[in-house]
Every structure is written in structure tokens, then in C-alpha cells.
């Protein structure tokens, strides 16, 4: 059961935040509100009228619109075309539509340019297009599903300004998030959901993040902080002048990675901050050997692996927690024990010679499930039937079971519940203490700052800045992530002022 006894009252003209850890049932609730799923019991009342939503169209007809976490936009169309797509009947596709977009954009301060191709827009702009799309369809109540997950702190502020505009114009916003600081700063009312039930509604005034966290998980939130440094001076992974370019269909060469050099030592966690899509995924794929380099060299533990195939790199001790576990980390329709073999088919206990060691793999899967607390009724169920957190724990367990020297962790706690998050952090910390080198990529700046020994900022395929995680704040990191600051970032007391370092 994902939801039971949910009671929420949202007043018109307010920003109402919905808080809860991952897996608490927020998304299910939203799907019900948006007509994508039907409740087994209970009612929804809009403006005093009891309604049933059989599909999203019903919800839109009642003025409820949804801005999804993952944007549903077409890259090769303009903003105008994206907004109009599927709603051609409302204002046509010509001048009338353009006028309406302009009107909405001005009224709510969205600053949308109708004729720009979507592919030229950044994440924050795309989000505004999504919001406009919903408004264009006549929504009076907007549901925003984790809207800040993809934004840097500065963009979050801009988004909140937009939300305040919407509120001022009499619209209602339902804002889903598990970032407590944000919730407190923007919401008029906060409803907390735990294990599928509402546990309370609070006013932000007079509530602290700590109180909110306790409401959310019933205990204190885990923090990603590490204890004393375990960094040694033995280099383990050395990247030297990595360059990756791709020629697109028009024959234009696009540089994806440019002159990336860094060294990770044994016992060191190197964190890479950056807005998604600035080359982090490609960097990981280059180190894993999934993408071929155009120039540069990668050395693992003193051996050059620049042209070694992926499998040999994994055998040499590279553990990999991919950012998209469904695409890169699991076979969703295969049982857990086959997923335990994935990526390590040549290694013990999964195989002997050319033959699979099914018994060995199965018993080792049992061990991982036990040791990493993967909640599952057995090892013969498919990976798809586990929750995100348990899938991730299985992956972490698998990668840690082959004595890695280097762990590449891309968004290791994305979409997992608080319990799993704390466990995954513990595993990374433990491994680091035993001399593991970790390359950490994350969009969660608190996680990045908390776990890393060294921080780098990636922007448009280059490492543009570095920072000391002991002193830096997420806001200061954020300004480098948008390209506003480069060089060595120094923490200043008053604000995130940009510092140019002569060292670079």
C-alpha cells in the first residue's frame, strides 16, 4: 500500500509544500491528484465540489496541472511549439497562441522567449517552459514534483520568485520536496507524509529543519559528514588531459570533455560538482572505458588503462555505481542473483573458467542481501520488483564485493530512502578508510561537500574550479556551477563572492 488516510487541505493562493522522504508516497499521491492513478477509497474536493479524475485530462479540466520532475519537452522544437503541442485547440498555433504565451510569461515573470529552440535552453529555462505549458492549459493549481532537484542554489531562488509571483496572482502551488531548507523558505503551509500517511501539517514560521526532519523520518536525518581525513599520498587514479569530442549530425564538432586532469589518491574522495549535462556522465563513461578518448591518458594504480576494454578495467578493481541504475546497473527483468553476476561475470564467485558458477553466485547474492540489508523476499525475484533504495543497495553490495581499488559513484543516493542513503554513505566511508579511492559525482551538494576530501567543479566539459569542502557552502559552489566563478573558491563570510586564483 503506497498511501492510506491522506488528509490534505490546500488553500487557494498559497504555496503548499508536501514533504516526505523518498518512498514515503509523495509521488503516488501526486499521481492520484493528477489523475494518473485512481484511489481505492477517499475523495478529492476541488472548490467545494467532489471530483473523480480518470486521467490527466480530467485533472486539467479542473485546473490542476503537473510539472514533472523529468521534463517532457521536445528538443528540436521551439518554446512556442512545445507549449502549443497537444493543446492546439485552445489558441491555435499562430499569433493568438504567441500572444497568450507572451501574456502569461509577462504576468508571472517567467521571461520566456517563444522562438528559441528548446535545445538551446538550460535546465532552469526548460523548467519555466514546463510551468508555462501547464499555465497555458488553464491550470489554476500547479503541482511541482521535486522542482529543485536539478537546479543550482541561485536557480532555486529564481524559481521561488516565480512561485511567489504565481501565488500573488491567486494561483495555488503544491510543491513536493524533501529538501527542508527550501520548503521552509517558500511554503505557506507544509504537510509531512511518512509511510504513506499524513503525519502533520505545520506552518513554516516557528518550525526548524530539525523538527521537520523528525516529523519526516521519525528520527534525526543522517548527515553525510566524514570524520578525520584518510587521504594518503599514493596516487591511484590519474587522469591526464582527457579530451572527448563528438561530431553531431550537422558535422559540427562538439567538445564534451576538455583537458580534464586530476589525481585521486588512496583513501581520498574526490567530489565533482556541476549542473547535470556538463560532461560528468561522459567523464565517468570515459574512465569506465565505455567511451573512447580523443586524447589524454588514464592511469589506474600506476598502469595505463587508456585503451583497455571496460571488462579488464573492472577486473583491475574499478567499482561502478552508475547514475542511471535502470539503464546501466541492472537487468530489470532478470532475477537478483543474475544481477549479482552482472559486470563481474569473469570473477569469483560468479564463474569458474568459462562456466558460470550459479551456486556460488546464488549463495553470494544471499550474503550481499544480508550484509547490505537489501529488503527482498528472495533472490529469485526480478530486480524490477525491488524499490529504488534496495536496488541501489544491491548494486553497492555487488560493487563492494570485488575488492575495488577505485569506486566511481555517480549520484549514489539518488532516489533512495533515508535509511538506504545513510547505509550507502556508511559503506563509502568505510571503504575510504580502507584505502579506497572514490570519484563521487552528485547533484546533492550537501552530500558532495559532506563526503568529499577534495572538490572540483565541472562546467561545459571543463574543470573550472576547485574548493575545500571543509569551508565551502552550497551557494558558493553553486555560483561556480553556473560558470560565474572559476579558480580556487574561497569561503567568504558575507557572500559567495567570486575569487580568481592566480594558481590557475
Amino acid at each position, binding site marked *: 500500500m503506497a498511501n492510506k488516510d491522506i488528509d490534505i487541505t490546500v488553500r487557494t493562493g498559497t504555496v503548499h509544500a508536501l514533504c516526505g522522504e523518498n*518512498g514515503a508516497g509523495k509521488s503516488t499521491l501526486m499521481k492520484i491528484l493528477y489523475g494518473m492513478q485512481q484511489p481505492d477509497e477517499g475523495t478529492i474536493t476541488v472548490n467545494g465540489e467532489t471530483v473523480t479524475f480518470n486521467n490527466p485530462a480530467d485533472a486539467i479540466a479542473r485546473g490542476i496541472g503537473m510539472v514533472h520532475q523529468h521534463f517532457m519537452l521536445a528538443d528540436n522544437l521551439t518554446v512556442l511549439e512545445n507549449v502549443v503541442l497537444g493543446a492546439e485547440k485552445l489558441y491555435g498555433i499562430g499569433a493568438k497562441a504567441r500572444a497568450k504565451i507572451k501574456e502569461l510569461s509577462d504576468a508571472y515573470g517567467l521571461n520566456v522567449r517563444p522562438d528559441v529552440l528548446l535545445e538551446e535552453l538550460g535546465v532552469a529555462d526548460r523548467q519555466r517552459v514546463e510551468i508555462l505549458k501547464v499555465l497555458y492549459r488553464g491550470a489554476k493549481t500547479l503541482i511541482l514534483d521535486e522542482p529543485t532537484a536539478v537546479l543550482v542554489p541561485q536557480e532555486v531562488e529564481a524559481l521561488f520568485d516565480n512561485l511567489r509571483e504565481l501565488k500573488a496572482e491567486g494561483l495555488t502551488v503544491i510543491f513536493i520536496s524533501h529538501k527542508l531548507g527550501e520548503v521552509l523558505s517558500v511554503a505557506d503551509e507544509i504537510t509531512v507524509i511518512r*509511510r504513506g500517511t499524513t503525519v502533520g501539517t505545520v506552518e513554516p514560521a516557528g518550525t526548524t529543519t530539525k523538527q521537520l526532519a523528525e516529523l519526516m523520518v521519525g528520527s534525526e536525518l543522517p548527515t553525510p559528514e566524514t570524520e578525520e581525513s584518510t587521504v594518503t599520498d599514493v596516487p591511484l587514479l590519474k587522469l591526464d588531459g582527457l579530451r572527448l569530442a563528438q561530431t553531431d549530425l550537422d558535422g559540427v564538432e562538439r567538445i564534451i570533455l576538455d583537458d580534464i586532469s586530476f589525481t585521486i589518491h588512496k583513501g581520498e574522495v574526490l567530489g565533482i560538482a556541476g549542473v547535470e549535462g556538463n560532461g560528468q556522465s561522459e567523464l565517468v563513461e570515459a574512465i569506465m572505458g565505455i567511451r573512447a578518448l580523443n586524447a589524454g591518458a588514464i592511469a589506474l594504480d600506476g598502469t595505463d588503462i587508456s585503451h583497455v576494454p571496460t571488462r579488464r578495467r573492472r577486473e583491475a578493481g574499478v567499482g561502478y555505481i552508475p547514475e542511471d541504475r535502470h539503464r546501466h546497473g541492472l537487468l530489470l527483468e532478470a532475477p537478483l542473483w543474475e544481477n549479482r553476476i552482472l559486470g563481474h561475470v569473469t570473477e569469483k564467485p560468479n564463474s569458474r573458467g568459462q562456466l558460470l558458477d550459479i551456486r556460488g553466485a546464488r549463495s553470494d547474492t544471499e550474503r550481499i542481501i544480508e550484509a547490505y540489508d537489501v529488503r527482498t*523476499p528472495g533472490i529469485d525475484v526480478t530486480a524490477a520488483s525491488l524499490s529504488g533504495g534496495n536496488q541501489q543497495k544491491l548494486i553497492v553490495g555487488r560493487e563492494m564485493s570485488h575488492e575495488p581499488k577505485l569506486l566511481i559513484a555517480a549520484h549514489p543516493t539518488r532516489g533512495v530512502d533515508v535509511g538506504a542513503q545513510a547505509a550507502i554513505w556508511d559503506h563509502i566511508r568505510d571503504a575510504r578508510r580502507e584505502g579506497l579511492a572514490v570519484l563521487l559525482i552528485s547533484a546533492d551538494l550537501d552530500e558532495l561537500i559532506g563526503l568529499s576530501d577534495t572538490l572540483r567543479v565541472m562546467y561545459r566539459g571543463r574543470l573550472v574550479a576547485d574548493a575545500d569542502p571543509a569551508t565551502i557552502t552550497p551557494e558558493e559552489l553553486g555560483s561556480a556551477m553556473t560558470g560565474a566563478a572559476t579558480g580556487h573558491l574561497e569561503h567568504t563570510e558575507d557572500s559567495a563572492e567570486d575569487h580568481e586564483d592566480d594558481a590557475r
Partner: protein
Amino acid sequence: MNKLTQRIDKERLLLAIAAPLLAIVAALVVTTLVILATGKNPFDAFSDMVTYGTASDSQVYILNKATTYYLAGVAVAIGFRMNLFNIGVDGQYRIAAFFAAVLGGALTTPGWISIPLIILCAMGTGAVWAGIAGVLKVTRGVSEVISTIMLNAIATAIIAYLLQPGKLAELQAGGTVVSTKPLRSSSYFFQIDTGPAGELWGFIFIAVLVGIAYWFVLGRTRFGFDLRTVGQSESAAAASGVSVKKMIATSMLISGAIAGLIGMPTLLNDSHQFSNDFPTGIGFTGIAIALLGRNNPVGIALGALLWGFLERTTNHLEFQGYDKEILGVIQGVIVLCVVIAYEVVRRYGLKRQQQRVGAELAAQAAAPTEKQEVA
């Protein structure tokens, strides 16, 4: 906990059987309606099919046919497990059988040398023909569906060109049949005399071996695991260290090599030469059988036997005054129903399992020892 796992497995087995059963029942219903529409009694037809199909000579005939179909099913299934649609099995087995027949006709060596040579030649030719599509896909990104369809046509043209007197074929005595030079009788594959029921082709044992090898390689070896991984998710396979391109090329070669075997039961056990009336279209039959058998070695065998049975019995129906097109109707409906039923059952099974696991974990979470959310 163990109990739940068992229950899930039992359910999975039940679902696996449900799909083809559903398809066959649906096909029976449709066939009944079709026969009714032609104004004849469908139940007489069915009872005739059963009586005739279970006669001993029919049994041998069906087994012989199924041998060929089984090899075709396996050849296609190898591609399917990789998410490759090898439509070219048809061209591959025909051109393989042709060149094997040419080689066999020319060989004067004793049987224990020439038979393996003929078989190897067929497998090699099939592999090369499929390999062309594999190389095109890996290097140029050409869809294997398109390239293998074209290669089928090219194979037809090449065989037609070479199967002429003066090229690689000769005019047989009687002057009506053009064929490759017949195999010497020492190159015939052994067969089992079953008395009045006819001869059971010895190649059935090769087919069984192929089935066992298929099961073993896919299920028990590292290579098989890699192959299945690519079939389930190319992106996960690449991340896990499988060279997807190499795997595509390799599996095309293997699929083609097995396709090369398809013509061998006919060539070595029956016709002993390649002529214009060499069976065609078996590659497409293989697609239907692989679908029906769910790429499972035993399932494919059942599918092949069913196909043999339908062919044998509907042939006989023709003499009873029924229309022979009934065969096409039954086969077509079965394949359509199978494809639909599998997808429906697969989705249902996945969803059901997810719900069960969720329910089980929720029950666990309700226990007081639990401290974290699991749903």
C-alpha cells in the same frame, strides 16, 4: 520467505505455459469458425487430424519435419535472445545447403570424412551469409532486419544463377530436373528403419545435440550470460564490460551457422542433392516456432512438433474435402495469438510480482523490529 519465492516461481511457470496454451485454444476457436463458415463440420476435421496425426507413419513424418523446423527455430532464437531479428535465416540455410550439396557431390572421400565436411561447409556458408549482415550492423549501423531481407533475395538470385547446367548443376536423367551432382551413397546420413512407418532421419540426434548445446551455452557459460545481457539491456551490457558490437557480430555468426544446419536433414537424409524443389521458406517457419517456443530449447521442440503435426494432418484434410488453406489459417492465428498472449502475460507477471514483493515487504515492515521505510 522461501515459500514466497517458490510460489512466485510456480506462478511464473504457470504463466509461461498459459501463454502458448491460450494461443492454441484461440487458434482452435478461430479455425472452428472458419471451417463452420465453409459449411463443413469442424469436429470431424479435428478428429480426423488426431487419428491421422497419431498414426505411426505420421509420427515418423512429423519427427523428420520437426528436425528441420527445430534447427530453424534455434537459429532464429539465438538472434532473438540478443534482440536481433535474423529474418535472413531463410537465405542463409538455402545458400548453405546449396554449397554443401555442391561440395558433397564433388567429394569422393569415405562418409566419415565427407559428412562432417558437408556439415561444416553448410555451417560456414550460413555463418558467412549472416556475418555480412552482422558486419554491416556493427560498422555501418544497418538494421539487420533490412540487410537480411535483402540478403535473402540475393541468395535466391545466386542460387538461381549457379543452379544451371554448366555452372554448378547438371541436368538429371529424365531431363526435367536440374540439380547439383547427387551425393555418393556413402555420404548419406544414417537413418533408423521403423518398418512400414518409414525411415526416421538420423539428423534428429544432431538437432537434439544442438538443443542441448543451446541450453548449455546460454544458461551455463559466461559467453551465454554476456549474450543474454546484451539482449536484455545494451546499455547495462556495455557498462558491465561486454563489447556489444563484438557480441552482435558473434551471435549473428552463430545464428547463421545453425541456420546452415537447417537444410542438412533434407540433404543428407532425403534428397541427397540440391534441386529447384529444395524446400524454401523454412527460415520464416523458424521465426514462428521460436516465437511459439519462447526461445526456450524445449519450447522450440514442442513448437516444431506442433508445426509438423499441423502440416501432416492438414495435408490429409485436403483429401477429405476440406480446404488446404486451413493450415495457413491455423498457423497464422497461432503466431498472432502467441505474440499477443506473451506480451500480455509478461506484463501481468511483472506487475503481479512487484505487487507481491511490495505486499510481503509491507508485512515485514509492519513488524516492530523494522526501523525504515521500504515501500
